């Protein structure tokens, strides 16, 4: 019995790399999709040595319609069943995005539009195979728009709504969809943070948690305590919430 193929979208991030390694160690074939071809090739060799029986790389720019078509074709020819780990996204400086419409639109196009189009492209394969699973990286920032990052947060909120509907749709096809809401993870994005107020999650820990939870689907916070933090934030009365500076 084949272990199937994990298609990793945005494969060069630290979190995606950790997840690809986990899937490789479990004997799954991999399609690594991303923009940096040299890096994809390096990751492909790494994943092969860690146990992936077959690794393909796919030059994939999320904002390129041709890339979406190529993804759909790849999904059809991969060793079935396929599963998808959607990890691409960007978080430019919020104050810059407010004055730079191009930068802001790019962020929304990547985090929301491209994610929706990519998942739409592989949807028929999931409907046909009636197995495999989908993991989508959302963000705690998508739970409630906050002063500090509501542009980024709103793109993720859109993605959350899409993922929720996708999960409902695919439940009839026995395909679990997992929406992951990472808190602060120790990646290049957060390396610049001074004195993070909460313990950082590791990419390996997050990948491990995604791997365990993927067959069940649903929504998962990581590290787990973010569930508590976000429940509190979501329910803060507006008068208080509006006065907070975060």
């Amino acid at each position, binding site marked *: 019995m084949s272990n199937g193929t994990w298609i990793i979208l945005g494969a*060069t991030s*630290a979190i995606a790399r950790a997840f690809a390694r986990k899937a490789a160690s479990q004997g799954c074939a991999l399609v690594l999709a991303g923009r940096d071809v*040299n890096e994809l090739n*390096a990751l492909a*060799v790494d994943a092969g*040595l860690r146990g992936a029986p077959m690794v393909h790389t796919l030059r994939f720019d999320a904002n390129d319609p041709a890339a979406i078509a190529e993804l759909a074709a790849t999904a059809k020819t991969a060793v079935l069943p396929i599963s998808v780990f959607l990890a691409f996204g960007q978080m430019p400086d919020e104050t810059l995005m407010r004055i730079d419409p191009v930068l802001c639109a790019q962020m929304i196009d990547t985090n929301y539009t491209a994610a929706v189009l990519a998942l739409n492209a592989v949807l028929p394969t999931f409907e046909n195979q009636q197995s495999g699973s989908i993991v989508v990286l959302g963000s705690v920032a998508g739970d409630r728009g906050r002063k500090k990052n509501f542009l980024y947060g709103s793109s993720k909120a859109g993605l959350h709504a899409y993922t929720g509907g996708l999960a409902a749709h695919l439940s009839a096809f026995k395909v679990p969809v997992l929406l992951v809401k990472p808190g602060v993870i120790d990646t*290049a994005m957060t*390396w610049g943070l001074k004195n993070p107020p909460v313990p950082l999650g590791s990419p390996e820990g997050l990948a491990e948690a995604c791997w365990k939870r993927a067959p069940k689907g649903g929504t998962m916070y990581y590290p787990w305590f973010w569930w508590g933090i976000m429940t509190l934030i979501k329910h803060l009365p507006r008068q208080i919430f509006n006065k907070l500076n975060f």
Partner: protein
Amino acid sequence: MSSWRAHTLTGWGRTSSATVQTARPERLSDLKALTQETGHLMAYGLGRSYGDACVPVEHSRAIVMQRLDRLVAFDETTGLLTAEAGVSFADILKVFLPKGWLIPVSPGSSFVTLGGAIANDVHGKNHISAGSLGNHLEWIDLLLPSGEEIRVSATQNAPIFHATIGGLGLTGIIIRAAVHLMPTRSNAMAVTRYRAEDLDHMFASFMQMPVEDTYAVAWIDALASGQTLGRGIFERAHSAPQSIDARHKAGPGLPFNLPGFTLNPLSVRLFNNMRYNMAASSTPTLHTVPVEKFFYPLDSIQNWNRMYGKRGFHQFQAVIPDASAQQGIRQLLEAISQSRRASFLAVLKRLGSTGQGMLSFPLPGYTLALDFPNSSGVHELLSRLINITRNHGGRIYLAKDSAITADDFMAMYPMHTQFREVLAQVDPHERMSHQMALRLGLRTREGGAA
């Protein structure tokens, strides 16, 4: 893209630290741009050097190498593994032990990077048969301070190769290396363990090893004196014929520093007595243990260095050449036992030949390693131990050291002159530096300006 961030780095013993600008590139292509910044620079692995070998100069820059950890190639017939320098021994073992391969030489912790292990030319419990890590390297890819990337090996840029092995990271940034893994029959070690009554018994044990046992180590009760001086537990081992079903898990961690008084002469004496009396019988007994448990006893408690409290600890490791090994080790143990300074781990090992590096630690003889809490008076003890070592023609292991002087260094490492010549060639502006390099007189504070 990779950014700089202020970060405080310490050695594993936590006795010295520095707040510096750090960057942690996620891919090799990010590394070069980072090295173009001015000022002193060093590569930082997992920070397991005990003293100041991994502590940057204050206000300088350090590049954290942990995320440059891709496996690059593996030859199933020869066992030659090529990997990026930030890969940890734990990671290598996780992937290759199930395929029947061991890292040829392992220090007491698997939480070390390949680059760090090369830069300290680490050795293990099989030094007699296997030598140190440098003996198993095919080549090293080095990013010179000039930004040029070169490959060094025994036949290509040989002087730089021998300066890089055990070279404390001063020749440039190790970015990739090819290392020969060692085939093994199983995931377990067949360990013969017994109590040795005194130091003579201990030395006799090392000298009368059965041929099949290629690994040996002794744990010595450093507080024992008089008749029982040098008593402890002797272990010799070879790879077990069959695998065992044992899943090794990381142990509990120490999330904070224990109060300094936890380790006092009384508690350590009790611990050592307990260990000596309970851990082994006086007749040799065979145990089959998982590879990880045999090689990496220190990894069972994460952040065990916090056990010594906020002030940290010093580790002392010396080798005494064969000619006066018994006498030298006895004098060291006497000095330690007289000092009444608590120490959990006193480890005695036998070393074979000298290493491949100009600053490699090993030489034929016996090596003793132990910890001392960083309390007042510890420096007097350390200088006493350093003097005993020097008088016997021995040397101190730089990966552990926090105490020797530039003068001690030159006496112990005669090839320092050749090492300096290579540094002058590859790093004329003294870019690569750290606190140990300043202490040993290999670098000056003014360096790195260009």
